[in-house]
């Protein structure tokens, strides 16, 4: 805990906040995107906006795995869960995300589907071992952070000759999403607070291309509030000094080349999909992973025949534009009035990393 509390120290935060106030140019408006929902959460939980000068604006990005999963994939997961032989294992956040017609895994569970919340894919393997007559499907979601454990589980299932374990793979990739956001030119940015945990796996090198191509500085930041403040300071310095680099603030965990063991594991079991749909961003080529043919027996999409689904979003929900950083949660007509954490109409209101949920939970003071 010492190493966590040190990164939440109020005195140090004040010092960094003063330095930021000292160095910002008064005639310039700085606009940074925190790519990850984890950062959005930290920014609002610790009240960071109240420590920044008015001309430093933070906008949230699409880095919330629960939020970017399109409805069609949630609808598929619900269909899987409703198969009588299936036990669907999912991370907790996913259970309440609304699919078409406000259906969700939690509602499927209430109507009799066997849906279990797990903390790790390891739990799903254990459930498969103890329920040999059932088909255990792991609903794999997330960016590069949660991908290596999924790859490892698939390898393990092969080693154990597990015939009743499959993965419904929805893993997506970060740098490609950044590229897609900048390519659209819908949102003006001066730089990114870059992903923390994702970068532990992939390192900082994969961001170099994006940074150069669009001339945007990126500072890879830890998830603690002092990390975020420090990264904002580093971004402001880069801009004031006309630099455009990929810097690592989160040096205690991130290396340039990432974690080679995890990367090899991912390459061994998973491969690029031709295209994949993202909520808000549409179809992006080479932006997600699928299970390689050598491991296809563990691919739920191969084992079960699932009809194609077209998700129908709530007409007034603006999750898509919120995810692209174009609009803020409070600009949504449904926000706080109809769409609340108890009754989420869009995915951004569900996960604590979702921009709407973070603003709803912590940011309604002003």
């Amino acid at each position, binding site marked *: *805990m010492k190493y966590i509390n040190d990164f939440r120290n109020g005195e140090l935060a004040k010092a960094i906040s003063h330095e930021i106030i000292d160095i910002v140019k008064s005639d310039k408006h700085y606009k940074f995107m925190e790519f990850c929902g984890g950062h959005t959460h930290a920014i609002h*939980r610790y009240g960071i906006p109240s420590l920044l000068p008015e001309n430093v604006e933070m906008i949230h990005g699409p880095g919330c795995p629960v939020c970017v999963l399109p409805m069609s994939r949630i609808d598929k997961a619900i269909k899987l869960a409703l198969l009588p032989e299936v036990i669907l294992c999912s991370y907790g956040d996913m259970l309440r995300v609304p699919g078409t017609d406000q259906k969700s895994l939690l509602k499927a569970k209430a109507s009799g589907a066997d849906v279990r919340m797990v903390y790790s894919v390891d739990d799903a393997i254990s459930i498969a071992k103890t329920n040999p007559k059932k088909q255990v499907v792991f609903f794999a979601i997330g960016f590069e952070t949660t991908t290596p454990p999924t790859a490892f589980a698939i390898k393990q299932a092969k080693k154990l000759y597990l015939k009743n374990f499959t993965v419904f793979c929805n893993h997506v990739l970060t740098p490609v999403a950044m590229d897609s956001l900048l390519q659209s030119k819908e949102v003006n940015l001066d730089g990114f607070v870059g992903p923390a945990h994702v970068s532990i796996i992939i390192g900082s090198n994969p961001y170099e291309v994006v940074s150069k191509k669009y001339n945007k500085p990126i500072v890879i930041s830890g998830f603690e509030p002092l990390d975020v403040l420090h990264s904002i300071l580093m971004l402001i310095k880069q801009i004031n000094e006309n630099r455009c680099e990929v810097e690592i603030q989160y040096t205690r965990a991130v290396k340039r080349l990432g974690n080679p063991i995890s990367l090899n594991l991912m390459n061994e079991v998973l491969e690029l999909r031709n295209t994949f749909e993202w909520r808000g961003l549409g179809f992006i080529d080479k932006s997600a992973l699928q299970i390689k043919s050598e491991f296809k027996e563990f691919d739920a999409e191969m084992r079960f025949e699932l009809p194609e689904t077209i998700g129908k979003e709530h007409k007034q929900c603006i999750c898509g534009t919120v995810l692209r950083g174009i609009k803020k949660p409070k600009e949504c007509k449904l926000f706080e009035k109809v769409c609340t954490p108890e009754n989420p109409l869009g995915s951004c209101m569900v996960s604590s990393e979702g921009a709407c949920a973070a603003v709803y939970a912590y940011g309604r003071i002003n």
Partner: protein
Amino acid sequence: MITETIEKKLIGPKINFNKGNVDLTHGSGGRAMANLIEQLFMREFNNEFLSQNNDQACYQVTNGRMVISTDSYVISPIFFPGGDIGSLSVHGTVNDVAMSGAKPLYLSASYILEEGFPLSDLKKIVISMADAAKQAKIKIITGDTKVVERGKGDGVFITTTGVGVVPENVNISSNKAKPGDHVIISGYMGDHGVAIMSNRNNLKFSTTIKSDSAALNELISSMVSSVPDIHCLRDPTRGGLAATLNELALQSKVGFIIDENKVPIREEVASACELLGLDALYVANEGKCVVICDPSNSQPLLKVMRSHPLGLYSEIIGKVIEDPRHFVQLKTKLGGMRIVDWLSGEQLPRIC
């Protein structure tokens, strides 16, 4: 002499509490049920009300206002570090009665047992209830036992109802918080919830944290006798401190400002919460109270609370403010401000 022999015949053979299991006859109203009541409940709870063998307990009504409260206990796991469903079912209801400022007097206890539940576990639970009642100086004076078929319950569920009497001049209610009032809590937050989580089957992590489950009636009694004018009292159980403050804000039509630095949270609890992605302010407690009082009374109350073993780590954590939106605001450790909202969904299922 003759009646004694008849009674012995009726009561029948000694129940094997080491190896036996609950079966449907234990709830059927027949001899097996009578045996169980006699050999377990009557024996452990042993008091003059139960020994009258009536379907109800009759007691004298005291002058003044009486208080009644009921609660059901479905906690999983049944045994956890620092307690079990039995002691919890006494502490929880005693505390609910005590939070009115009342002196709790009597409890009823009702059991729903699942066929197959080990009698050894039932005995442990009943002994633990008896001990908890004895410590809290309260009597369990009436009860009921039902058995449901295997698969229709989850081992054991317990419902307890408590009655108590409020001392004169004490008028505590959740709608009495006023702007300017101080907020005191009686100690560390989140111990109970984390102790339960660490013992869940699918979440094996080791921690030394024990549940804080305890009866607060003695602490409350010393508080109201030195400062009768307490505005609100509440035990922050499900949903933790966050839920309790939000409820009070709504009922009293006020807002709160809480200082995160003042809220005592054990380092082990904070670490476990980090690991599980929980916020300790939302984690349940079973032996703590939140007190709202006039600022002139907060220091005298703090002194009384800190002199009791269950209030050693009491702190003034914030104050009541005017706020038509009834927000609970937190001054974070970092120096920023944020809202502590109602809990949405379930953070921890079945913690009490």
